[in-house]
């Protein structure tokens, strides 16, 4: 096993080095710092919403926080082992590279587990810090240490459980393996959405921890069954009969590689939108919508949207009889959130998700205004349709009269329009940024089209996400009667529609100046 361990370390080291290169060393704007900052901010928000219990309830707080962090790290551990493991061990470009060498496959499995350790240590520390604020002061810091150790331990065992699931699934059902990713993705998004709704509607991590303490037996049993036993089984097998794991992984990998070969030969069907008139509009809409229809990822995102719409249904039932402002704040907001979670990237990445093919518009000398209009239509129409579906589901659940349902739909679509305008504007401002802009020292600089900010992937991603989120939230806030921050209606609406409009106008202006066809 010594040789295998050395190789595993080499593989883990290459992963760390690649992350370091991408996030810090060769990233002009040090994307890693932004990422760390966002993680810290999230943990800070949760910590702020986790008030300390009274001193005599310290033990109860620790037990609850332990159950909470164990459930969280257990879930993300299994998901990481399965989903990330699938990319790293079965699908990635590097998989054939590993196959070419005499290195034992076992080293790749172990290497990926070792590679995940620093990230696991760091993120678990953040969450342990956030949840430790549940405990009263004298016990907080020892509690943090216990939470951290337990979180890391559970996460690691759960990671192994995810790998075991992946290995067995890949060996016996390789064709359906990717559905596992879909299931994990949908469930995770549903849980994250529920957590956001819970926290933003006044819930606290302390209440969740206390509820987890009440249910600790069930939590422990579930964790042991789903993560603990399978994870420990894999760990024991790796120690006693590593060749068993290795052989199953190897056979599964061969079957996956073989299926990939066959998949590439599957014939498709050529389709094009039967639109008359503007060829650019026809081309862009056909390309965008066919891409969506054929994308496996879009199907997964549709499931995420459906999961969000189920949330809208329950919100609708709870909101029956509420005034219009309340309906907008619950059914409307959740409908928009369901769309944002699943398909918000349509808007924020409208120019970038094409990657290198975006250059085709330049090569064909497509006039920029027509490209902008076509792209705007391509994201606005399906977005409007999906939000309408979610609002209809919520309205039916709330038994709204037709007039109220129409009013709710109008307000929600207006918020969506604001989001699309603002998000599209920021995306347009960054459209000139080349998808694969070289970041290495000495590499040729990207085409000059704006400030240094424009030249950074990380900053552009952040700006596009914030631009979209704020543009969606402001009209919703105004339509819901300006909760949290009271403002006169005219001022609220001026801000709510003015900012997205300003973003749209200025972003499109930047694009018109810098995008030369």
């Amino acid at each position, binding site marked *: 096993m010594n040789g295998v361990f050395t190789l595993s370390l080499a593989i883990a080291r290459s992963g760390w080095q690649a992350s370091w*290169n991408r996030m810090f060393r060769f990233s002009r704007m040090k994307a890693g710092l932004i990422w760390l900052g966002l993680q810290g901010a999230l943990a800070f928000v949760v910590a702020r919403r986790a008030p300390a219990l009274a001193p005599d309830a310290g033990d109860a707080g620790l037990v609850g926080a332990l159950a909470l962090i164990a459930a969280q790290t257990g879930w993300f551990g299994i998901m990481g082992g399965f989903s990330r493991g699938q990319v790293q061990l079965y699908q990635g470009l590097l998989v054939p*590279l590993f*196959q*070419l*060498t005499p*290195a034992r496959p076992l080293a790749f499995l172990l290497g990926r587990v070792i590679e995940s350790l620093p990230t696991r240590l760091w993120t678990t520390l953040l969450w342990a810090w956030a949840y430790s604020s549940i405990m009263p002061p004298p016990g907080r810091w020892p509690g943090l240490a216990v939470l951290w150790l337990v979180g890391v331990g559970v996460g690691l065992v759960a990671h192994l459980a995810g790998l075991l699931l992946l290995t067995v699934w890949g060996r016996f059902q390789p064709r359906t393996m990717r559905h596992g990713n879909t299931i994990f993705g949908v469930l995770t998004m549903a849980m994250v959405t529920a957590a956001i709704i819970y926290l933003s509607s006044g819930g606290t991590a302390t209440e969740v921890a206390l509820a987890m303490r009440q249910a600790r037996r069930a939590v422990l049993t579930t964790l042991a069954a789903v993560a603990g036993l399978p994870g420990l089984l894999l760990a024991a097998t790796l120690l006693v009969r590593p060749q068993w794991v290795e052989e199953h992984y190897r056979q599964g990998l061969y079957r996956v590689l*073989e299926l990939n070969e*066959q998949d590439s030969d599957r014939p498709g069907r050529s389709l094009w939108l039967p639109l008359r008139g503007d060829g650019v509009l026809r081309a862009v809409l056909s390309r965008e919508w066919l891409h969506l229809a054929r994308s496996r990822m879009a199907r997964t995102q549709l499931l995420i949207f459906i999961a969000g719409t189920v949330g809208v249904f329950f919100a609708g039932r709870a909101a029956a009889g509420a005034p219009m402002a309340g309906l907008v704040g619950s059914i409307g907001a959740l409908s928009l959130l369901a769309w944002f979670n699943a398909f918000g990237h349509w808007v924020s990445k409208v120019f970038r998700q094409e990657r290198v093919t975006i250059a085709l518009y330049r090569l064909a000398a497509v006039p920029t205004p027509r490209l902008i209009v076509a792209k705007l239509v391509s994201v606005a129409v399906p977005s409007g349709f999906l939000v309408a579906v979610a609002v209809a589901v919520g309205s039916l659940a709330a038994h709204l009269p037709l007039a109220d349902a129409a009013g709710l739909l109008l307000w929600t679509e207006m918020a969506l329009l604001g989001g699309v305008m603002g998000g599209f504007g920021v995306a347009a401002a960054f459209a000139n940024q080349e998808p694969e802009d070289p970041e290495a*020292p000495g590499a040729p600089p990207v085409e000059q089209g704006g400030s240094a900010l424009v030249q950074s992937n990380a900053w552009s991603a952040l700006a596009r996400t914030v631009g979209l989120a704020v543009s969606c939230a402001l009209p919703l806030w105004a339509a819901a009667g300006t909760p949290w921050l009271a403002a006169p209606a005219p001022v609220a609406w001026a801000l709510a529609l003015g900012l997205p409009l300003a973003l749209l106008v200025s972003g499109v202006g930047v694009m018109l100046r810098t995008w030369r066809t």
Partner: protein
Amino acid sequence: MATKPAILLEDLTKTYGDFTAVQGLNLSVRPGEIFGFLGANGAGKTTTMKMMVGLLPPTSGRVCILGRDVWREPAAAKRAIGYVPDTPILHELLTAREFLWFMADLYGLSRSEGKARTEELLSLMGLTAQADRLIRDFSLGMKRKMAIATALLHRPRVLLLDEVTNGLDARAAREVKDLVKAWAREGVAVVLTTHILSIAEELSDRIGLIHRGKLIANGTAAELAEQAGIPGAGLEESFLALTGDELPQEAETV
């Protein structure tokens, strides 16, 4: 005494359901021999190469490299193989130097040997000045050179080169062709696939022609011309004659 083959394919077959990609392929390549492996798109070249390097399990038959079965003794066989795929397989978020160190670890080279070999190959490929840049930022030609350096890292006795000159400029392509000849003189068995028939003609001691998964011709360029029934013809004419039924109807109409 006959030389033991460096590469031996015995009745190698690959099927996907009803479709047979490679059918009963028998082939041997001697140490120091350059074997050109030609065929039209989809003829089965890449599938055969993938089975030879251990990327795709054969449905039946076997592949032996220096007497070791690639699928029964993979570690021993792979130590002897250097493979340059048609699309370079590289860790793009590592620098050129880091990537070669990484591969040296995977091939089991000692730390000092790995570092020395890395510098040697970077120099050989003319990449020393770019050694600390991310591979992601390399041109296709530079990536191809990196793939060649990777294949040579562990001093293999068998080299499998898939479209090895693609993306290289004229000078670099000339250098690679000279290197292939030099490796063969040192006793390395080389199998190369290419669509540029002049390269195959210039470099190969022997040429095999695969068509619809079957090896339909095998020999020197002159022998292929004989098999095609046009003695004295060049490789292009032989190739076209031997794979004549491949010509699409539309092309004939045009």
